[in-house]
């Protein structure tokens, strides 16, 4: 049992890691087919992980209902919606009043998706606009130099990336510099500079750090140094 729990996962990680790493340096039909087989396995495992997620979600809500925890009534809604969508998608028979095949336009599944799922998700996301407006009004203060820089960048981006920003820029007088015409307030130029220079530079630095650490972690996993993915301490 200890072998299956400890050594076996390390062997799998080592063999799979080394094989897929070497595959990049020895491109051949064999290495391609090994990679294809591996990717098929990954997709199957991810599929099972999705099932595990669904079961875990159901279990969480069933326990909530059984123990009558606060808000347990909403768990009934979650489970009912889950069963309804699953039946609509998987029903092996035609549902009266809807298209014959489950995934066709006009099917019950698509009807539920279009008239419940889309509006509900869109509503949830739209609410953000109200909270962002309120939060920005209350909390966005030029309290320090860093906060002032952030505030200025945010103000330029918010106006500069919408059509009204173009109107404002075009309404300001122009001047010539190195043979080019510039507006006194040129929000498109300013937003473009913010995105392409400081933003891209900062992001590139972060990405390099992230990917270098990912390589380090991958090496640690392949050689069995990093074992936290197995659920234990070390």
């Amino acid at each position, binding site marked *: 049992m200890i072998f299956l729990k400890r050594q076996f996962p390390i062997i799998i990680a080592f063999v799979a890691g080394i094989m897929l790493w070497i595959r990049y340096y020895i491109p051949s039909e064999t290495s*391609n087919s090994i*990679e*294809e087989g591996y*990717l*098929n396995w*990954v*997709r199957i*495992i*991810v*599929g099972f*992980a*999705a099932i595990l997620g669904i079961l875990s979600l159901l279990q969480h809500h069933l326990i909530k209902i059984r123990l009558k925890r606060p808000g347990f009534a909403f768990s009934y809604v979650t489970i009912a919606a889950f069963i309804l969508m699953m039946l609509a998608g998987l029903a092996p028979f035609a549902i009266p009043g809807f298209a014959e095949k489950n*995934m*066709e*336009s006009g099917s019950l*599944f*698509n009807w539920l*998706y*279009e008239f419940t*799922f*889309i509006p509900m*998700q*869109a509503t*949830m*996301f739209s609410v953000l*606009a*109200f909270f*962002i*407006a*309120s939060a*920005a*009004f*209350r909390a*966005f*203060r*030029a309290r320090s130099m860093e906060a002032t820089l952030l*505030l200025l960048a*945010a*103000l330029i981006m*918010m*106006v500069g*990336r*919408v*059509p*009204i*920003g*173009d*109107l404002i820029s075009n309404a300001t007088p122009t001047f010539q510099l190195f043979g080019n015409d510039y507006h006194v307030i040129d929000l*498109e130029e300013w937003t*473009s500079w913010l*995105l*392409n220079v400081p*933003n*891209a530079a900062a*992001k*590139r630095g972060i*990405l390099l750090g992230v990917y270098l650490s990912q390589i380090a972690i991958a090496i640690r996993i392949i050689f069995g140094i990093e074992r936290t993915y197995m659920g234990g301490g070390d």
Partner: protein
Amino acid sequence: MDFVTLILNLDRKIIFAFVAVLVAWPLIWPLALPIETTPEVRSIFAAIEALPNGSDIIIAADYDPSSKPELQPFTYSLLAHCFEKDLKVHLLTLWPGGPALIQQAIEDVAAQYNKTSGTDYCFLGYKPGNAAVVGGLTNSITGTYPTDFYNKQTATMPLYQRVQSVKDVKYIVDIAAGATVEVWIAFASAPEKVPMSAACTAVSAAGYYAYYTAGQLDGISGGMKGSAEYDVLLMNNYPTVKVGGATRIAGNAVKGMDAQSAVHLFIVLSIILANICYFIANKRQRDERRGA
């Protein structure tokens, strides 16, 4: 209560009411603000425009209804652009909530252009496992997707008699609400040397400029503004693209930009006002302390 104190203690419901009115007003009575295009979006349009007629393109629509207002108009316009140029479209999604949304878009646009599934386009549907799916497509499209969204065998489709893998397509566009752009760059575009562009939500667009400036992305379309710019470019270059009517192909994002402009301007003005009031209140406090 004086004005400064009133502003600093403003009930958030008043702000909510302003936002609601400013979103609804321009949607009911459009302001028709002119939309200028940015180099990032013009690059995407130019890249698609430069593809030879009949080329194959992969469009990954990796989003779900929460990003519909920002990204669905881009999908419509891009599909219309591809069909105007008779490009062969391979459409798929890595997001579980996406397929029915993509189905609407492809069925609407394909019907408008009389395009046939399996010959002119293929909607491959959803598969879990982001990197594993994209990596699989570089080996074999039909191997990764043995059937399409409608459960039809892909291997027998005319489209896949000449296209085997990502290597055989000329371009990739990822329309993404999450971090799938990096997956497409790392596992398909860069190793197979297939150029690509990305259309993403406004909140995630800034994160992809590092790839854009490095040349790994030809262009970036950020949020509804990017979609509106693509709409404008499409309508200016292809006047036959239908605007409005029963099947709206282009112009959907343009309509949303008035509301977005109004709300952005309101937020900016309210932040400036709140900061002025904050500094006045601070000065008063300092003066009171000095006086005491």
